[in-house]
């Protein structure tokens, strides 16, 4: 292919040779030397033209043109620094924001999980569709069947919770995972120090060996390199540390606690403290599995279905047909990301609109400038520049601008990364994996180039007008733009308004949802209340448990309450289990109880479940929850008295819609079955509903039991009064540890704080979309300001004549405003229709407002039009201040 790179000099030599030969031939025919040369040249024609054509045919020409265009564009941008700065910043904003959100989407939704062969990882969920139960947890024999089935390389149930770590400077409460010994073999991650569990270990109970996280190793043990073999006390049992997981390792989990596990303990789930394995006792909350190599998830699912069918035949008593037991495999990534998907897609959509709006803005800026450069373009065309060439030149200018904008945007993002990550709520899954990596950079490059193409094209398409004489003749006056250009500008403005309106309506709906949630009556009074947690240890051997029964625990609780009451500022105290903290507990803290209601005992293998809160009698008064019927717990409802319960209104409505619930009888048990000899619990009162699970959900049925009758290990102490968030928790810790120095005191939170934290993801979505909408509003305002200013300056002369002829200034004002307002209203109307379509897809993110909420739609449209009016008013005022004399003399 070397011919392609043939040099111009080579071509020149060939032509030279041709002319020489032709001259020689003519001389032989008898011409004089000079005549022959002239004739040869004449026969050849235009040598320069031949050379030009040769040059153009060599394919490097486009590069020459491109390079010329780039240099010229750079010169143009340098000549107008103000314009360049505004355009670059607008694009930087659009590209930077889009890339920031994309980096989160990339890490959360697009990236595979950070484990080897992540596509083979699934969660295993038991469903009982026959009785409407999803993800019921799995039982130990089921796990063992799945492990042996050959469908999976490994199956690991994951239990866990929190545990008291003692032996370090301060008793600490840490999150631990109880996993079978095959867990790390399944995940495929090796510890940085020591070794992980032996997958062949078949100890039924806990192995008394543990792995710790890098974080805990550094926090509690000062990154001691000799940590291996050291013993730590977890609750009352001694465990040996056998390994430290690498920094940055996180368990796959839906909640922050699950992801930030600090300790892993191995167990076979078949020895104490676990109950003896029972096929229908689903004591394992969840399980993950690695599918055997070579199998896809679908193939594995069909083999699991076959296994389920054969087990149902083998154990008909454990799997009655009416519950329709199923085992479902869900790709692990899908299970981890869960419902964040919708919010993230909303954010990406919103930020994409911002990018589009900033493109439109820069496009209309470029367009305004290109009509100011009409003369330059006309002169170039008159001198023979091709239309294509000019279009490429303008497109290059656009691209250069957008690339500059992209670079500025990315640089800002890079510097602000740490700060930005702080605003993201840490409940977002896989947050720790967010980074600016190659795919993100490529995305930014793509976004900038796309943006450049979009806004570079608008002015480029207008070069087509070959109406040179008109433009050249209008020399001296600011060239009036053609009607075609004016139309494009109007279309751009309308687009910008429509897009802004869509974004603002989305933000408006989210804002209203949030507002409604904030103003929802939670049914309890969170003000001046603090909840502080402690945890009584559960030793592996129940015989050594000093707080085993209610009778053993009650004196401790009474002493705790007595001491808490003496703390400064405290007016009221109460205690309860972790589930009694309104909005302050995670979903995996839920521990539903089996329920049997007297007179309606169910025959299925799965009696109904109900959530239970265990509390001391002062709880209702402290939280301001009004009693509807009957009585609350009293001092006499103690460990020696017959068991009593208080139910909430929802519970009463479901079970006794037409009868008095007070005096009715229930049986409740948190094991997986209800023993026949369990005594009946009597309902003594009905308390008003409160939104203790989620502000967005009206109350679910709930039963309250007394802590003095039903002991609990995970305790919360509630304090009401003038509390100091800094000094109250340490003061309480001192009092608790005076009773028992081994107990940790942790997790202090105000209920106001818990309430606000429960809204963190909603708040984040709302704030982000709100921010984007505000940006869009600002850009739209600036856009219409620019366009109207431009129109006014173009028409200065005309307005001068009008004024000279006696036009009223008021009419001029109205004329200019009318122009702007028409654009704004058209844009708003188009946006209105788009928003109607878009808002329906957000229904799942809204609370209390319909996606077509007329108030939001109207208010947002009015706001947008108001801003447009304001933006038009400034140039319009300038228009009426035109001095007719000056305007005319200008000519």
């Amino acid at each position, binding site marked *: 292919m070397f*011919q*392609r790179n*043939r040099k111009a000099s080579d*071509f020149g*030599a*060939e*032509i030279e*040779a*041709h002319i*020489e*030969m*032709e001259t*020689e*031939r*003519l001389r032989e*025919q008898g*011409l004089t030397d000079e005549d022959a040369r002239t*004739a040869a040249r004449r*026969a*050849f*024609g*235009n*040598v320069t*033209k*031949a050379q030009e*054509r*040769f040059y153009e*045919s060599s394919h490097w020409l486009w590069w020459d043109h491109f390079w010329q265009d780039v240099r010229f564009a750079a010169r143009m941008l340098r000549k107008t620094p103000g314009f360049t700065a505004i355009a670059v910043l607008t694009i930087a904003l659009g590209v930077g924001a889009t890339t920031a959100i994309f980096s989160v989407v990339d890490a959360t939704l697009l990236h595979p999980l950070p484990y080897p062969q992540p596509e083979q990882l699934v969660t295993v969920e038991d469903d009982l569709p026959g009785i409407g139960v999803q993800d019921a947890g799995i039982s130990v024999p089921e796990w063992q069947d799945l492990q042996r089935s050959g469908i999976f390389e490994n199956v690991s149930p994951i239990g866990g919770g929190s545990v008291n770590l003692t032996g370090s400077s301060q008793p600490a409460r840490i999150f631990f995972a109880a996993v079978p010994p095959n867990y790390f073999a399944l995940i495929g991650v090796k510890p940085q120090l020591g070794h992980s569990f032996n997958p062949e270990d078949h100890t039924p109970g806990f192995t008394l060996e543990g792995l710790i996280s890098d974080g805990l190793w550094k926090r509690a043990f000062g990154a001691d390199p000799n940590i291996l073999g050291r013993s730590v006390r977890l609750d009352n049992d001694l465990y040996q540390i056998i390994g430290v997981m690498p920094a940055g390792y996180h368990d796959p989990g839906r909640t922050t606690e699950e992801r930030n596990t600090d300790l892993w303990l191995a167990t076979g789930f078949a020895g104490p403290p676990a109950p003896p394995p029972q096929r229908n006792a689903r004591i394992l909350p969840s399980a993950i599995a690695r599918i055997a190599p070579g199998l896809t998830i679908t193939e594995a699912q069909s083999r699991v279905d076959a296994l389920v069918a054969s087990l149902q035949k083998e154990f008909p008593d454990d799997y009655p047909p009416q519950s329709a037991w199923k085992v479902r495999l869900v790709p692990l990534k899908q299970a981890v990301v869960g419902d964040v998907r919708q919010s993230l897609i909303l954010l990406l959509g919103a930020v994409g609109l911002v990018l589009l709006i900033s493109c439109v803005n820069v496009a209309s800026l470029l367009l305004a400038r290109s009509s100011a450069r009409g003369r330059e373009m006309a002169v170039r065309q008159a001198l023979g520049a091709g239309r294509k060439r000019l279009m490429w030149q303008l497109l290059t200018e656009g691209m250069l601008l957008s690339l500059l904008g992209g670079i500025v945007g990315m640089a800002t993002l890079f510097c602000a990364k740490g700060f930005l990550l702080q605003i993201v709520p840490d409940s977002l899954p896989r947050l720790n994996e967010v980074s600016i990596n190659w795919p993100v950079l490529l995305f930014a490059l793509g976004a900038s180039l796309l943006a450049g193409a979009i806004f570079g094209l608008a002015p480029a398409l207008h070069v087509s007008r070959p109406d040179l004489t008109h433009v050249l003749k209008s020399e001296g006056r600011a060239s009036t733009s053609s009607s075609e250009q004016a139309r494009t500008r109007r279309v751009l403005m309308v687009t910008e308004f429509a897009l802004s309106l869509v974004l603002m309506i989305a933000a408006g709906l989210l804002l209203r949802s949030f507002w409604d949630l904030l103003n929802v009556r939670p049914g309890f009074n969170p003000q001046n209340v603090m909840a502080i947690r402690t945890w009584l240890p559960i030793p592996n051997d129940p015989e050594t448990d000093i707080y085993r029964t209610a009778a053993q625990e009650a004196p401790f609780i009474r002493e705790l309450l007595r001491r808490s009451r003496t703390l400064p500022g405290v007016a009221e105290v109460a205690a309860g289990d972790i589930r009694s903290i309104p909005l302050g507990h995670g979903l995996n803290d839920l521990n539903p109880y089996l329920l049997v209601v007297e007179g309606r005992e169910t025959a299925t293998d799965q009696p109904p479940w109900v959530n239970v809160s265990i509390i001391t009698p002062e709880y209702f008064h402290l939280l301001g929850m009004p009693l509807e019927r009957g009585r609350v717990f009293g001092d006499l409802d103690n460990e020696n008295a017959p068991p009593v319960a208080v139910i909430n209104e929802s519970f009463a409505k479901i079970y006794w819609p037409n009868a008095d619930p007070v005096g009715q009888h229930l049986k409740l048990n948190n094991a997986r079955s209800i023993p026949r000899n369990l005594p009946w619990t009597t309902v003594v009162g009905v308390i008003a509903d409160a939104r203790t699970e989620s502000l967005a959900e009206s109350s679910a049925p709930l039963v309250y039991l007394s802590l003095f009758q039903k002991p609990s290990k995970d305790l919360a102490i509630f304090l009401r009064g003038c509390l100091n968030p800094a000094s109250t928790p340490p003061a309480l810790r001192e009092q608790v540890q005076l009773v028992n120095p081994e107990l940790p005191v942790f997790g202090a939170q105000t209920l106001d704080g818990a309430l606000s934290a429960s809204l963190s993801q909603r708040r984040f979505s709302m704030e982000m979309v709100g921010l984007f909408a505000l940006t869009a509003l600002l850009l739209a305002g600036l856009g219409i300001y620019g366009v109207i200013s431009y129109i006014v300056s173009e028409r200065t002369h005309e307005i001068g004549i009008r004024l000279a002829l006696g036009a009223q200034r008021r009419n001029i004002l109205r004329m200019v405003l009318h122009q702007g307002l028409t654009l704004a209203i058209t844009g708003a109307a188009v946006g209105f229709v788009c928003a109607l379509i878009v808002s329906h897809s957000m229904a799942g993110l809204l609370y209390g407002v319909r996606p077509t909420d007329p108030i939001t739609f109207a208010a947002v449209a009015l706001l947008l039009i108001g801003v447009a009016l304001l933006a038009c008013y400034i140039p319009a005022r300038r228009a009426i201040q035109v001095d007719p004399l000056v305007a005319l003399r200008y000519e």
Partner: protein
Amino acid sequence: MSTQETRERLELLQGTLDLLILRTLIFGSQHGQGIARAIQQTSDEELLVEHGALYPALQRLEERGWISAKWGTSTNNRKARFYSLTSAGRKQLAKETTKWNRLTAAIGRVLESEEG
């Protein structure tokens, strides 16, 4: 002055120059000036080939791989760039010739019928 006949010569139809070049080269390799001469002579001086237009055409044919070129020495000991037909060029010539014959025959038929 044989190149400046009084009789007006025919301008080449668009696209026929390529065909003529290929046809000329079928007798062996030739340089640009030789090709121009050959076309003029074999057409009995009827066709006007602007020599300057010949070279971009040669360049084009070379890029398409129908002809190849290398520098050599002419009969009267001058350095010249010699073009020769490649096998792809030979095929192209056959194709173009057939096309041209069909075209002229068709046009001829139309003109005949109009006259008759």
